């Protein structure tokens, strides 16, 4: 296995440990190593590594750079709320905090390059320096010149430096309009089921045999592989459910070899886990407590999405109902619903062409405040004075994200809103105030 990783210029032992830490990623690691070349050689200016979440991109880079003791700076782009942070972190890890403190208050790219060159001339690189940027897709949102400049940083600073970009998405989505230096692309494919099995089996419980744990992982993958291939999640789930798996063993009912019985015991439990703890309906702490409790009582723990009931003040409910009607009925039909002697309007010849499709399929439409209030006053059963608190309820519905303001917040004149609640939600609300909303919806005529 370790034979795969061979590169002159690095110690054999180190390569061995690297290989041990990177199961199922030997090919990619080997490729990377050959790209990097020997430590003192110049490397390719920029390498672009992409692959799905937890396909080992960061892990491989981290292990390689750390075990081979190469000078490197690892930066997560999420964390860099400003480019200053990015520059600072790079300078800090290459040249120490003196260099970082040289940066002016809001540094530009040229400041960074200047300081880098200055420092670099004082301590020239004996080995290739690496800058690893995680979540590189966020670089697209920063200044337009940042990404192209980073890609050819080697030229700019005249130093043996290589940028490695790690991301989930493909290079095509990165390429700026103006064109840029093309980095080397390297794809990390997803782990296959067998590979997942192999990796997960490595972290076995110290007090149980490797075979047992491997059998457990096999069962786990059987349930979860179809929905989740995220190594991190799978490892988390394995840890959460292992104690339940071992329950019959500790009670002495089953022997370790009797996998079928163990499977029968754990399978329904895992299925339940898939619906609850995997979706974070139930927290992992609660899940663990539940496992301990289960023997005593089968207390059904309600997940997060089970609590959908929202209590609202009486008029807020009607405002929400009015907003829903305004969002899902065409404005021309208001007369038919809310004027007493409207006459008969046949649905068929009343329709415009684009209204024939269900409004519920098209989603909510924006409506002006006036229309909302007009519908509100005709829907609510008692006479309501147009008080300030009615208006403030509208804005509090917006902050609760039950309505969304479509027009810009600065526009005081005739603001527009959209209703952001689901059909089920509004039905539940209107039931509490004895309002039959379906009768007023154009789609359900």
């Amino acid at each position, binding site marked *: 296995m370790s034979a795969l990783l061979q590169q002159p210029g690095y110690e054999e032992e180190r390569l061995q440990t690297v290989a041990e830490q990177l199961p199922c990623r030997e090919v990619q690691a080997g490729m990377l190593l050959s790209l990097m070349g020997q430590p003192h050689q110049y490397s390719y200016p920029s390498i672009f590594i992409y692959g799905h*979440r937890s396909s080992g991109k960061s892990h491989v880079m981290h292990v390689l750079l750390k075990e081979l003791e190469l000078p490197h700076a690892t930066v*997560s782009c*999420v*964390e860099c*709320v*400003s480019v*200053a*942070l990015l520059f*600072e972190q790079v300078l800090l890890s290459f040249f120490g*905090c*003196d260099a*970082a*403190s040289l*940066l002016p*208050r*809001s540094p530009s790219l040229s400041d960074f390059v200047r300081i880098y060159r200055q420092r670099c001339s004082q301590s020239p690189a004996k080995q290739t320096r690496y800058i690893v940027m995680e*979540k590189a897709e966020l670089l697209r949102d920063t200044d337009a010149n940042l990404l192209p400049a980073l890609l050819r940083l080697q030229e700019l600073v005249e130093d043996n430096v290589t940028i490695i970009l790690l991301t989930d998405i493909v290079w095509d989505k990165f390429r700026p309009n103006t064109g840029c230096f093309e980095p080397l692309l390297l794809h990390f494919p997803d782990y296959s089921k067998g590979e997942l099995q192999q990796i997960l089996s490595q*972290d076995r*419980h*110290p007090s149980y045999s490797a075979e047992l744990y491997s059998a457990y992982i096999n069962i786990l993958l059987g349930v979860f592989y179809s929905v989740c291939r995220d190594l*991190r*999640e799978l*490892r*988390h789930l*394995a*840890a*959460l459910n*292992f*104690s339940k798996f071992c329950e019959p063993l500790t009670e002495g009912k089953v022997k370790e070899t009797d996998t079928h019985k163990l499977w029968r015991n754990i399978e329904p439990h895992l299925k339940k886990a898939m619906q609850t703890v995997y*979706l*974070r309906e139930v*927290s*992992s*702490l*609660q899940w663990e407590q539940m496992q301990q409790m289960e023997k005593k009582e089968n207390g059904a723990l309600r997940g*997060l*999405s089970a*609590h*959908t*009931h*929202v*209590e*609202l*003040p*009486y*008029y*807020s409910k009607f405002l929400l109902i009015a907003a829903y009607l305004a969002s899902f009925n065409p404005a021309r039909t208001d007369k038919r619903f809310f004027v007493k002697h409207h006459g008969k309007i046949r649905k068929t010849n009343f329709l415009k062409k684009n209204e024939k499709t269900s409004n519920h399929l098209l989603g909510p439409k924006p409506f002006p405040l006036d229309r909302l209030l007009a519908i509100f006053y005709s829907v609510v059963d008692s006479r309501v*004075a*147009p*008080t*300030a*608190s*009615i208006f403030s*309820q509208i804005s*509090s519905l917006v*902050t*609760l*994200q*039950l309505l969304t303001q479509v027009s810009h917040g600065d526009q005081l*004149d005739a603001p527009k809103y959209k209703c952001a609640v689901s059909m089920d939600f509004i039905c539940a609300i209107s039931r509490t105030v004895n309002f039959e909303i379906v009768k007023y919806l154009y789609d359900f005529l």
Partner: protein
Amino acid sequence: MSTSSVSKGCFVFKPSAKKKKTLSLEDHFIHGCEGTENSEMRFKLCQDLWDTIKTDTEVLQDELNRNILDSLLDFTRKCSSTRQHSDWASQMRASEIPTAALVLGVNVPDHDMTFQGLSELLQQSVTPHVASVQAKECGALKHLMKRVLERLMGAVVTVDDEEEEEEVEQTSAQLHNSVHCSLSTLCDWYNTKSKKSYTGTPGKKRSSPVKDDPQQPPLVIIFKDLEAFNPRVLQDFILICSRYIERLPLMFIFGIATSPSTIQHMLPHSVSSLLCIELFQSLSCTQHLATVIDKFILTTHFPFKLNGKVMQVMISIFLYHDFSVRNFIKGVQLALLEHFHSQPLSVLCCKNKEALLNVMQLGHQDLERIRQLPSFKRYIEKQEPQEQVNLSTDDAHIKEVCQRLIKDLHKYHKNYYPILRCLHTLTSSLPRYPLGKQIRELHLICLEKNVWENEEYQSAMRLLKMLAKDELITLLQKCVEILQLAKSKNMTSALVQLEDVLAKFKQLDVVAAEPPPSVEDCITSPVKNLQKKTDLFQLQKALLEMNESRRSKKLSPFEILRNEAIEFIDGLVKSHLSPPESQTLNEVCYYTSSATVRRHLNATPRTSIQTALNSPYYYLQNDRLKTEDGTVSNAAPDICIVYKLHLECGRLINLFDWLEAYATVVSAAEGNNPDFDNFGKVDDVKHARFIRAVSELEFLGFIKSTRQKTDHVARITWGGC
């Protein structure tokens, strides 16, 4: 002003602080107050009452939140302790950020108090590091980061575009020189902090070598209003935090107003899988209001009372508009202030003994006021003629009578509340809730009029007479418990009687062992007859007979006793639950102006604009503006005239016609002779005034410019002529 300077020059004299006399609260209160002679005393009474209400609400709030806060605290402790486990499972587990989702309900104004209490409690008992952030101060990730760091580290952070901080520690001077808002800064800070506390208390470590809990207090970040946060910002923040969770014991608390599923709406699975979310549900706001009413309204501790209409206004604001208990209490405060400010006799609105003393100190004017009170007038009318004369002339005598009446009023309250509670316990479990589910509804009914004349009351009594034995006994038992708490004489005697009844019920059990009287015989005989007859008419007759006999049949001892008990309760209600308006001197304690409360708490901006434009006299109080209904004096402000004229137009208004009409009206106001040539001519000044008035109307949203016709504006409102 003089200076000690020898040279000539300009000197700036800042006004000395002494001269700028700031009015104290008391001055504000006394200013414009009805009946100034005892206003100071009233101010003191008012303030004392408000202070007690305020402190009591805080205590109440703490108590109500205790449960949820305790479980939250447990959660934080548990989280910070499990972090330090080193067994296999917790090592393998992905390290999630412990997160408490705190569902607080939609009454957002109340949340502040809860969070205040929460962060104080956390700081006291779990960790000194608590930061709470609001959505409106965190528009971008940078700002959120800055706020969090500021609040955790105690303001030693800078963002690039702001001043760098001065406070620099010697050991890390170079580092601090260019501190940025990043969590790694926080990390360093936290490490030095915990190291310091470690070296500061070396004994602690030695004494508890296994558990080093206190060394690692978690960093708690409270998101006060989760819904309002920008999802993007929140996601990024969580991603960043999860990178540091190994080094920093972070913890989140999400304040949620709607439902916990918002978390799933805001965060994708890749982010929410970084959290370990546990749900905490707080008390619903209606329950909260119920306890507040129970504590402040339905009690004799506070002499200040609200009458039915005011209560109705405040409760409907709560139920229909905001669900906010804090606003409800603010409403009570407003009523309290208004009462003491506007009612000179409120000096008697205090504890029994004080009130009696205050009665003796009343001046002649106050006594006259008492004589004018409607309730007191009614009282006088009922007296003997001699007494009537005495009351209206003899000041000393009226004082004595007042003392007695005040005492009576206090007694009335002492009896009212226990009986109200008893009636509520009896009726609140009846089907269809004839007298309301909540005690506040019953209270409102009782405040309005005699509750026993109410139809719902009658039906409730009928239902009570059909209760099963064990139900009735448990209810009566509860009533006994309520009466035990009451201390007045009437209540103790009622208690004794009620206990008597209960004892009789229990005796029935013993008696019931004996064979029941031969009621069955009389019932069985018609049934036998039934079987014989086949004729329809006969059958009907027989059935009617059966019905009759059943109705008139002899009541069982239990039924007799039950009726007796209900009659007894009915008697109590009739003697004690009469509405406060029937009590003499009720004006002293009851605040009645519901219109004022409504105007202050539930403002109607549109109506007030309309009033101002229609009848400027209402606000300006200038006699020249006084007019008949529906017309505007031509001396009114320009905007009123323009408004009035525009009401006469259709949807589109011709600006020139409008201007002409305006000029005519204004010329008349200037007293020009209509026969003059230049009467109604538009000059520059009038033109300018008109334009200003029109643009004011546009600003207020009555008209807008339109492209349909040139020189026209469109009306946005309808109505008028």
